[in-house]
């Protein structure tokens, strides 16, 4: 290097992107979240073509695009399919490390449900563990109306 341009002091400038977003849930997810919020019910939706229950529900089946039909009320209990113990946390996570993220197969559903585990020793979590939803005190109609899933028994 070593020329007029390359020799200048290095200027790195911080810049923020702070565009605010408002995402519409749409009719389907609004129904799902209002039932979750008001009645502490987790609903799935059934695809008539694949004969699968999708939880969280979708308006169209992600596999075949056919509109889903029946709402299916789930018990809120399920089985841990896979999990991770977060050891190094970051600012966007709702819990402080160490804590557990899990994919949970809800009873009666054919898809995995993404959430966190609570009231559990991270060391004791295993695939196949039975868990149930613990609902947040304050519910606003969001995935976090479920505070976390805790082991049953």
């Amino acid at each position, binding site marked *: 290097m070593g020329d007029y341009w*390359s020799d200048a002091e*290095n200027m*790195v400038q911080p*810049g923020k*992107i702070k565009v605010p*977003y408002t*995402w*519409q*849930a*749409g009719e389907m*997810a609004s129904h799902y979240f209002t039932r979750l919020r008001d009645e502490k019910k987790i609903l799935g939706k059934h695809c008539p073509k694949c004969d699968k229950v*999708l*939880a*969280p529900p979708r308006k169209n089946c*992600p*596999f075949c695009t056919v509109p889903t039909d029946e709402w299916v009320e789930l018990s809120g209990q399920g089985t841990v*399919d*896979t*999990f*991770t*113990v*977060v*050891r*190094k946390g*970051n*600012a*966007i*996570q*709702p819990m402080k490390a160490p804590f557990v*993220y*899990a*994919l949970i197969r809800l009873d009666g559903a054919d*898809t*995995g*449900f*993404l*959430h*966190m585990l609570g009231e559990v020793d991270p060391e004791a979590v295993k*695939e196949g563990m039975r868990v149930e939803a613990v609902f947040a005190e304050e519910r606003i109609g*969001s*995935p*976090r109306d479920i505070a976390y899933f805790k082991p049953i028994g």
Partner: protein
Amino acid sequence: MDRVAIVGIGQTKIEASKERQNYPEMVYEAVKLALEDAGVGMDEVDNVVTTSNDFWDGRTISCMPVGGVSGAFDKNISGVEGDGTFGAFYATCRTLSGSYGSTLVTAHGKGSESRSIAPMITNAAFDPVLARSLGLDMTTACALQARKYMQRYGITEEECAQVSVKNHGNALDNPNAQSPMKITVEDVMKSEKIAEPLKALDVSPISDGACCLILANEERAKKFRTKPVWLKGVSFCADAFQLGDRDLSECKPLEQAAAKAYRMAGITDPRKEIDVAEICDAFTYQELMWTEGLGFCKKGEGGKLVTSGATAKDGDIPVNPSGGLLSGHVAIAAGMYRMIEAVRQIRGEAGGMQVKEGVKTALAHGVNGLCGQSHCVWILGSE
């Protein structure tokens, strides 16, 4: 169908931070090198494709500042968002459509500029209504996949660690790599736990870099200095979006993309016919999964494959002799870097990374999305 060849390659060194360059300057460096490599001026380039991502670049219309340095002022140009292998695919289509005799395609990533908010950028890949507030990101999502895959097939953390040992070791011979290291399985096992089972040395770094390919159809390929490396087969395929909709222990889209690419290239026994593979090992377990998906071994045997030494530089199916993403992961450009390494192997110009003389067929691979949702497979050949 007409044939398309890679006739020029250019890349910057991969580094943790190129803080003295802005990203168009990095792209310019790569373009200049590709033109030099091809032995032509910009007038031999008919049109341009750029590959970028607005989130990583911290810029809406992230393709805007790189058009000029890619020589597109008075040329047709387009922009792909996704991995560089997808950019190269579109560039190939533009050449095959008969509209252009040659296409220059670039890809870049400058992870250093967004290093502190990388989890936020990959968290934005989750559905804003159904999942984003849970705070998952690429690493935590892949940790879920790693455990699922390892549990299902009995893959051990030590087997995953061997990928880290192999690839960081391979990078010692790669003058462009960011993190060449002589390490042991024990070093990997002892490295900081991030999200179990992933540890610091299972995870690829955040990197800066840019790369460029020049493609030409059969007739135009004659005008370039280099011996053409032919695009023999390519395909890509995507899985369902939500992690819970997928069997995370599987990579069906990779199997399908590979099957189509092999068919196009006339490959029936990939392990035998492919001389070297450069694939996206963003996490150690992924190299094992992808080698299975590519058919280098049976399902669940990726761990055995690496342990056997088959994927080492002197093995029968060398994987990532360049050191892979574990030794330098330029988001968005990652797959195009793999294509460049594959070209070097076929040309016999890979130096210390060269797996053998007379490499005829090489594979390059790229990924889009979380946990390998979408894969692109390229087969490159000397003839």
